[in-house]
């Protein structure tokens, strides 16, 4: 039982980080119909911005984190939208999918060229202590990851539901034409969505890199998990992506501990195929009128 609790909690902790990436993915899909195949690299890269801050600019950790966040929001939010997505929008879906795939290669190779192929140690943000609860050894890092991620998700939900800007963003996602008529600055709202996505990816990056180390190829698995979480939970719901992320984190850990380590990566994939075929809108999602 204590082992179960341990495995379950660490699964929730990684799952909550997956959820951050998955939520960003979902937001981009809603606001701009952009399926971002580079989302994994978006989570991989900000950790390197922080490392640049620490090693090259000699900033303290907290300042490097802020530096990393700002650079990530500018590069992965603003530039991504202006340089890659915006010119591509009139061309439709497939070219954009291909372009984001190419972008993921570009970011991966770029990082490898400029920062080396070895995994870089990333400073711990939270203390590395453990505590014992009912016989289970629980790391404070896991708990803090979970608390921070859930805090961010709650904050984001409040922002989207309670503030004027948030509601304008929702209106834009639901029906851009009507939103425009009602006086919402649609372009600006779409831009905000890209910025929020970049910020979420950066946060996920800061939380996961102390565990996985910063490596150029981290994005491959992270991106896949983010897609799967977003789809399993529901492509058009924030809470769907949250549930999807947590579910995958927990199931992944449980499979690895109790069933098979060789096929641990297979479970989310099988889940994905089953969900897509059985409930394409996801567990919590509502089907989109747009598709018809």
């Amino acid at each position, binding site marked *: 039982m204590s082992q179960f609790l341990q495995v379950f909690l660490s699964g929730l902790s990684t799952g909550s980080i997956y959820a951050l990436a998955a939520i960003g993915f979902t937001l981009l899909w809603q606001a701009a*119909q952009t*399926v971002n195949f580079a989302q994994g690299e978006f989570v991989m890269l900000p950790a390197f911005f922080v490392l640049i801050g620490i090693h090259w600019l000699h900033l303290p950790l907290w300042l490097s984190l802020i530096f990393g966040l700002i650079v990530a929001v500018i590069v992965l939010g603003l530039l991504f939208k202006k340089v*890659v997505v915006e*010119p*591509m929008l009139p*061309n*439709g*879906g*497939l*070219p*954009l*999918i*291909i*372009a984001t*795939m*190419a*972008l993921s*290669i*570009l970011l991966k*190779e*770029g990082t*490898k*060229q400029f920062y080396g192929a070895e995994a870089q140690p990333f400073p711990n943000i939270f203390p590395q202590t453990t505590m014992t609860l009912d016989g289970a050894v629980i790391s404070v890092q896991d708990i803090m990851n979970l608390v921070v991620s859930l805090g961010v998700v709650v904050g984001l939900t409040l922002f989207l539901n309670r503030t004027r800007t948030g509601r304008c963003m929702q209106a834009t996602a639901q029906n851009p034409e009507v939103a425009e008529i009602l006086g919402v600055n649609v372009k600006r709202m779409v831009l905000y969505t890209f910025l929020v996505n970049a910020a979420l990816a950066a946060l996920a990056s800061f939380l996961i890199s102390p565990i996985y180390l910063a490596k150029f190829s981290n994005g*491959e698995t992270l991106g*896949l998990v983010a*897609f*799967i979480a977003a*789809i399993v939970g529901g492509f058009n719901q924030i809470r769907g992506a949250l549930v999807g992320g947590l579910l995958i984190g927990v199931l992944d850990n449980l499979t690895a501990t109790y069933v098979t380590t*060789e*096929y641990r*990566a*297979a479970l989310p*994939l*099988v889940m*994905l*195929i089953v969900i*897509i*075929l059985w409930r*394409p809108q996801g567990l919590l999602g509502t089907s989109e009128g*747009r*598709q018809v």
Partner: protein
Amino acid sequence: MKRRLTPILLVVGLALLIVAPLGQTDYIKYILSSWLIFAIAAMGLNLTLGYAGQISLAQASFIGIGAYTTALLTLAGVPWIPSMLAAMAVSFLVGLALGFPALRVQGHFLAFVTLAFNTLFYLVARNEDWLTGGPYGLSGMPRPDFWLFDTNQNLPFYYFTLAVFVVAAALMWGIVRSPWGRAFKGLRENPIRAESLGVDTRRITLLAFAIGSAYGGLAGALISPLVQFINPDSFALVQSIRILLMVVVGGAGFFFGPLFGAAMVILLPEFLRFTEGYYLMIYASAVIVLMVFCPSGLIGAGQALRERFRPGHRVRGDMKQGSQL
């Protein structure tokens, strides 16, 4: 393209392909063979994606299925031709099965299902040691030997690949021109209208996947004796993305698109060797720029230049459907 020019261009192209490896180093002959092989795989994906409009990120897994089938059979002493036919048959059947999700979902959802399939294939190939040799793969597959014509050297193997490529391309030409080919395009342009005109969209969707996959299997049947070593990494998701890039960069829905696309992906790195590690970055940037300015690929770019007044409507329609999904 003018009708009268086509046969001349074909003959010139074929002559170029025959002359290409002469006087080159052994390594270049090897690269040229692998270019033609990937062109076959990309041709299959072009049928699924370019003509029938069904996105698939699983082509590498079909090359894998073909390669493993051929490797296992030829290692067991079966000649190459029956092994190749078996490889194509297995890929065809698995492709048929993978087509079923496409009946339910489209666009990026389909991309994710096929992507998941490719990763599952990779996991199985890596973990089932008793069949696939696990991470160490299989090696020592014999090259096909046709009595007088023995392909142990790279030059005969190139001509052997070229012959298979020409036959495969001719078959594909036939398929694209056949009623099936028109049905594929109908499916891409407007599935509802195709259905109402009496096209069995269900059967056509499955066929598009199955035939495309069988071409993947054929490519696998050639990879296996060319490299004489296969392991799961050669058929990972990255490879599927590479093949998808070949199709789109070359020009999805254009017959010769995959040949140019495969050249971009396989041959260009050899010319860009001097850039060392930067090749992939240059390549990725080029793809993004191409997608911004000419989403219909290299051939599309050529056509757009030639016929400035007629933008590529055919391909745009395809893209438009993608954007709605």
